[in-house]
């Protein structure tokens, strides 16, 4: 394997995985925040 190509592939993988994980955390956070907000609103509605 060409050394520059190996360097490129390695760093592409590193950043792809870090970005994927960070985006996944962001998506999860938005979903949970929305659920919490909806729950709090429905509790307020009951009172």
């Amino acid at each position: 394997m060409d050394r520059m190509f190996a360097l490129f592939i390695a760093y592409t993988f590193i950043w792809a995985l870090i970005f994927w994980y960070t985006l996944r955390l962001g998506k999860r956070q938005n979903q949970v925040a929305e659920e919490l907000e909806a729950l709090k609103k429905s509790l307020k509605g009951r009172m």
Partner: protein
Amino acid sequence: MKQIQGKKGQVGALAWLTFAAITIALFLVFIYAPLEATMREVQKIFYFHVASAWLGMLAFFVVFVCSILYLIKRETKWDIYAYTSAEIGVIFTSIVLVTGPIWARPIWNTWWTWDIRLTTTLIMWFLYLAYGRIRASLGEEGKRAVYGAVFGIIAFIDVPIVFFSIRVWQDYQKTGLHPIVINSQGTGLAPDMKPAFFFSLFAFTILYAYLMQRSVKIETMKAEIKAIKDNVLG
């Protein structure tokens, strides 16, 4: 349960610090650090490969400590810290296990060898994958936390083995392909490579803190949702 809300300003500041640290690390790796004489460009994988290994072991150490604290105090927050840290540790150990062979192929002329460092790292990765599976398979919250904590303590046995075994093995067997980065004589790195190496370790430590903060915030909100639902349903 005590409501813990991460303040937006705090998360933002850590995110910016992480971005700055990683940017500086990339500059040091690709611009400042010289090319290694034999391996040339491909040696630059080293900086983030080792930094990922450091982050993985740090994460698993946090799992170990938080698992012990959970078993002693039985507070949910220690369980949250443990399993969020384990997830991050598995991600970065995956980086180690992929970038290592990519680096190895042009240098050792093989993708993989059952060298003691590689083998024990692979075992470590499987152990923490199993940690996640064990937790996911247990429905009852209390059991999940306790079994997870026990496994998190036992699994940590492999972490010092990963670090030290290569030193013991190469002392006695005088064989082994994987280099020892830090030994009693230092790092063996050229002086101009050391800033990139040590700053990469620092940048990844900040990255770990940022990812932990985000993950813990999510899990804390989930726990708050559960607490509200439990109160409403009685």
